[in-house]
């Protein structure tokens, strides 16, 4: 199995706890013989590299330097994420199993790749805009929410880290409850749960 993970934070770029979670995930996947690529971003530490644990990374930087906020920053960074992912895809003779997208930032890229290559993606939810912004409803927050919504509807599977988050996802975005799967990060069967989900997505896709 060959998997591309998208995350806007990955060591050394740490914003919250997602960076270390994704690092842990990628490392465990490699140990379980999944060929794992992480596409992430960094202002100046860019290009392809390999972590000691065997995780292959590609860090991209924003082609547009001036931004009015995280939204415009994300929306111009996505094309670079697509470029990095497409390079992995073509270098692997188009044999990539899925992308695993952590939070909303690179949902647009995952959606494009899905439509272009029939490449399924999993939306792994760390947090939602409603909670981050305390239900703010400015056009800025609503636009981010609309990208989350796009991810919820286009993803093959949604992975959440608690029962509570599954209920929120079902309530806020009206997704069928069996589309969102709870995989507890601190459980003993965490990585098995992830691998099972990957397997389901790969098998569930009709070419």
């Amino acid at each position, binding site marked *: 199995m060959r998997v591309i993970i998208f995350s806007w934070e990955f060591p050394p770029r740490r914003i919250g706890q997602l960076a270390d979670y994704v690092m842990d995930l990628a490392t465990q996947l490699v140990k379980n013989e999944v060929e794992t690529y992480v596409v992430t971003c960094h202002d100046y530490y860019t290009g392809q590299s390999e972590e000691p644990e065997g995780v292959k990374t590609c860090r991209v930087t924003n082609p547009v330097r001036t931004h*009015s906020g995280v939204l*415009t920053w994300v*929306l111009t960074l996505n094309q670079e994420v697509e470029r990095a992912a497409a390079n992995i895809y073509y270098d692997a003779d188009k044999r990539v199993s899925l992308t695993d997208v952590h939070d909303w930032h690179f949902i*647009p890229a995952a959606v494009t790749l899905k439509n*272009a290559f029939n490449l399924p993606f999993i939306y792994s939810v760390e947090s939602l805009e409603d909670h981050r912004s305390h239900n703010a409803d*400015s056009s*800025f927050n609503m*636009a981010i929410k*609309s990208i989350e919504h796009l991810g919820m509807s286009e993803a093959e599977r949604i992975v959440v880290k608690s029962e509570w988050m599954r209920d929120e996802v079902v309530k806020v975005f009206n997704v069928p409850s069996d589309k969102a799967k709870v995989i507890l990060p601190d459980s003993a069967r965490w990585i098995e749960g992830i691998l099972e989900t990957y397997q389901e997505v790969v098998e569930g896709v009709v070419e």
Partner: protein
Amino acid sequence: MNKELTVMMLTWEFPPRIIGGISSHVYHLSRSLVRNGVKVFVVTCDYHGAPPHEVIDGVEVFRVDSYKDPSPDFVTWVYLMNMNMQRKAAALVKKLDEKIDLFHAHDWLVANAGIGLKHVFRRPLLATIHATEVGRNGVQYENEKMIHETEYWLTYEAWRVICCSNFMVSHAKWAFGLPEDKLVMIQNGVDIREYEKNTIPDLSQFRRNFALPEEKIVLFVGRLVYEKGIHVLVDAIPKVLEKVNAKFVIVGNGYMKEHLSGLLDRMGLAHKTFFTGFVDCETLRSLQKSADVCVAPSLFEPFGIVALEAMAAKSPLVVSDTGGLSEIVEHDVTGVKVYPDNTDSLAWGITRVLLDENYANRLKNNAYRKVQENYNWDKISQRTKTVYETVSKERSRTIWT
């Protein structure tokens, strides 16, 4: 033997959605490319009442959801719209078994989608730069900088950059630091046939809606903004009226409108001017055909399509010697060139044309011939096709597969 060249064009406007000049440009270019044997898919924003897919003279037009949820500002909306456009375009290319040779993006408004598609499908991207933020507003504030940097990003990613005048080629070279061999000049065009249709049979009757029979019509068409030099024309009005009885018909809207009409009131010249606002295409063409002289007093002008329109309408033409206008008009042959931002020079040009009918006739006949020969869409699409073929050939020699 050769497989038909297939291009996917991206544009934020296509008829019936008309916001600026790109809509009509892509409409004419795409249809003409089809006539010259290129398969064209146009992906554009949706418009109320227009179908999501239709075929117009062989051009496959796809209209995508242009993102109608609230967005914080115009630039963010453009990026969000691109997200939707890219998603639909990617699905379409996939459906076509990736039988697309090139992507062609018009202005920064579709930069993200064009760049993303280029990398995902590994097909060359071409960009037409119609205007720049540097030229429009300058780049001082955050949003202007974002637009400028997005324009830069598009030209950086493009295999070739097409500009519509030599002036714009050198402007783009300077504004984005582009190498010479990346730039191609292909001028803009005008469809003469649209001016040959007699949609309004009695032009002299039509003319009376705008001017008295004894008044000559001086026509200005353009946005009423500083860069179009409309204030220079207003200052020239009394100087022209000293010599000729004329009515100044001003078509278009813009932030200077109130100021200018107030000024004309105080000058006691309100009765010699007519602000029509925005008019439909039919009225515009009939006005251009009725005008005794058309003026383009611009201070900054990437191309100057109104000059071509005047030439196609067989109206004599006075332009300021700047930007694309300098290249379109040959002084004393196809029109009169005057000094930019110079009231006396502009008044001189206008009176010269209005007072000498033989001279005016000679200018307009020469101008009409020039438009027929050089600025027709057939010629433009052939040149564009040549660029497509060159890029396709260059692409086939790379290992980018």
